[in-house]
């Protein structure tokens, strides 16, 4: 397997867009292409990441249309779907094709118009990422999934609900604080603990500010083999390790509140990179809900199981902490246009490792990681990047 680097990145602002999925994915793609010092004609294959365009715009089979939009119809163009992990799944696959020697330069491009769908339809279609036959009819929503996990976390680790709620609110406040430093974030205004703890209940015990928003947005990455990357960029960021794993519906996940699929995917990526959790300088992890950040921080090995709650309270995950989590604002504040999310996490880590993250720069970051959860654990991807 050859070394593979990210040579260029692109990302629209996340939030509410009047633009179409095509406009967002094409603008992000052209930014990634232009910043890679290539033209669209250099792209040998397209890895398109989108989850719900069928519901958002009545559009399936996007691959070819994206290729055509970029003037490269004819190249293989594949659309991926793995719920919220779609973008990381596409990135990992793109990596594999370049690492194997099959292609030298490929484009990963994602988009989603989740906010423009409106909350009722977005909630319904997001819930399709649960087991439709045996669990979906119960009426579980995604906040519901993590409501189940939050209550189980409190019970399993004997963490008083009051302590857990305070930790979750601390994470929400941190996300909005970091998002305020990110000009592309969906939310760029700080919030207070009082505001988080006083918000309406969405799915017990999760309140409004425990939940990420539905967002519109696009993100894209150009990946190239090491040899090509060295010619194109003075600051290539290498993909050091990737991992992907799977799981069945929540009933079959006997490890809860741990997500076994995350542990398996993380193990693959650490092993491939020859690294350990303590080597990671900065991480963009899947904080679709504040409790999700806690369980992810444990699943990735930064804290022992049951200790992530206290670590967040202790400030370990803040910008100046031992392991800064989600300097971009995360899904919580940067936003969660699901098809674009995975690529956007990589965008943030690339900017961090290049020292280009401006007000949200983690000083001296050399090794970074992304973590993306699809559905209620069904798909889990991790990517480790380094200078």
């Amino acid at each position, binding site marked *: 397997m050859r070394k593979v680097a990210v040579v260029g990145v692109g990302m629209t602002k996340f939030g509410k867009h009047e633009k179409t999925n095509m406009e967002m994915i094409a603008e992000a793609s052209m930014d990634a292409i232009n910043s890679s010092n290539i033209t669209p004609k250099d792209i040998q294959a397209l890895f398109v990441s989108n989850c719900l365009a069928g519901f958002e715009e009545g559009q399936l089979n996007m691959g070819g249309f994206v290729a055509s939009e970029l003037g490269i119809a004819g190249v293989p163009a594949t659309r991926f779907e793995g719920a919220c992990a779609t973008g990381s799944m596409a990135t990992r696959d793109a990596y594999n094709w370049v690492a194997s020697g099959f292609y030298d330069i490929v484009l990963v491009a994602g988009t989603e118009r989740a906010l423009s769908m409106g909350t009722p339809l977005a909630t*319904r279609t997001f819930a399709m990422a649960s087991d439709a036959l045996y669990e979906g009819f119960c009426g579980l929503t995604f906040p519901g999934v993590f409501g189940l996990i939050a209550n189980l976390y409190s019970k399993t680790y004997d963490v008083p609900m009051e302590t857990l709620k305070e930790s979750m609110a601390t994470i929400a406040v941190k996300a909005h604080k970091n998002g305020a430093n990110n000009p592309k974030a969906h939310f760029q205004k700080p919030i207070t603990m009082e505001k988080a703890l006083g918000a309406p209940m969405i799915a017990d015990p999760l309140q409004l500010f425990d939940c990420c928003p539905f967002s519109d947005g696009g993100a894209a990455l150009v990946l190239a083999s090491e040899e090509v990357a060295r010619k194109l960029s003075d600051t290539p960021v290498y993909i050091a390790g990737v991992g992907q794993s799977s799981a069945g519906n929540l009933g079959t996940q006997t490890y809860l509140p741990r997500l076994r699929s995350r542990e398996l995917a993380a193990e693959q990526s650490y092993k491939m990179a020859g690294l350990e959790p303590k080597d990671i300088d900065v991480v963009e992890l899947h904080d679709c809900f504040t409790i999700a950040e806690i369980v992810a921080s444990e699943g990735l090995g930064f804290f022992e199981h049951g200790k992530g709650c206290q670590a967040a309270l202790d400030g370990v995950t803040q910008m100046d902490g031992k392991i800064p989590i989600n300097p971009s604002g995360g899904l919580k504040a940067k936003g969660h246009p699901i098809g674009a999310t995975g690529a956007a996490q990589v965008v943030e880590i690339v900017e961090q490792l290049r020292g280009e993250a401006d007000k949200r720069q983690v000083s001296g970051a050399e090794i970074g990681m992304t973590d993306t959860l699809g559905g209620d654990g069904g798909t889990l991807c991790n990517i480790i990047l380094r200078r």
Partner: protein
Amino acid sequence: MAEYKLTADRYFEALKEDKLLGLKCNDCGKYTVPPKIVCQECSGSNIEVVEMKGEGVIKTYTVVRVPQEGQESQAPIPIALVTLDEGPCIMGRISNIAPDELSLDVIGRRVEVGHMVIPGDKYAHRDGVIPAFTVQ
């Protein structure tokens, strides 16, 4: 040709009569509920259909207050994962405690499994039959 010993249709039809069917593995002895094509523990095919006791313990719960499109009239919806006495864990709704009366104390309480029919919406291919949990 490979064939399901217990199809989704048969599982749901039985559940409608408050009978919880499952699969018992003759190789590893473990149970699979709801049905799969193989044993969910060992992936073996030496499985047979059995009627479960229909009792278990609440593993965790939540109350969905912002429902999916089409379920507005059902909210707030109390949902639980229940670990059956035979081992498998299933999702359903709590039927005999008002959502606002629920607290962490419900975790660990024993339940009996009944059923509830949930009409399918335009995306679903059928009506749903879900476990309804009566807390003892």
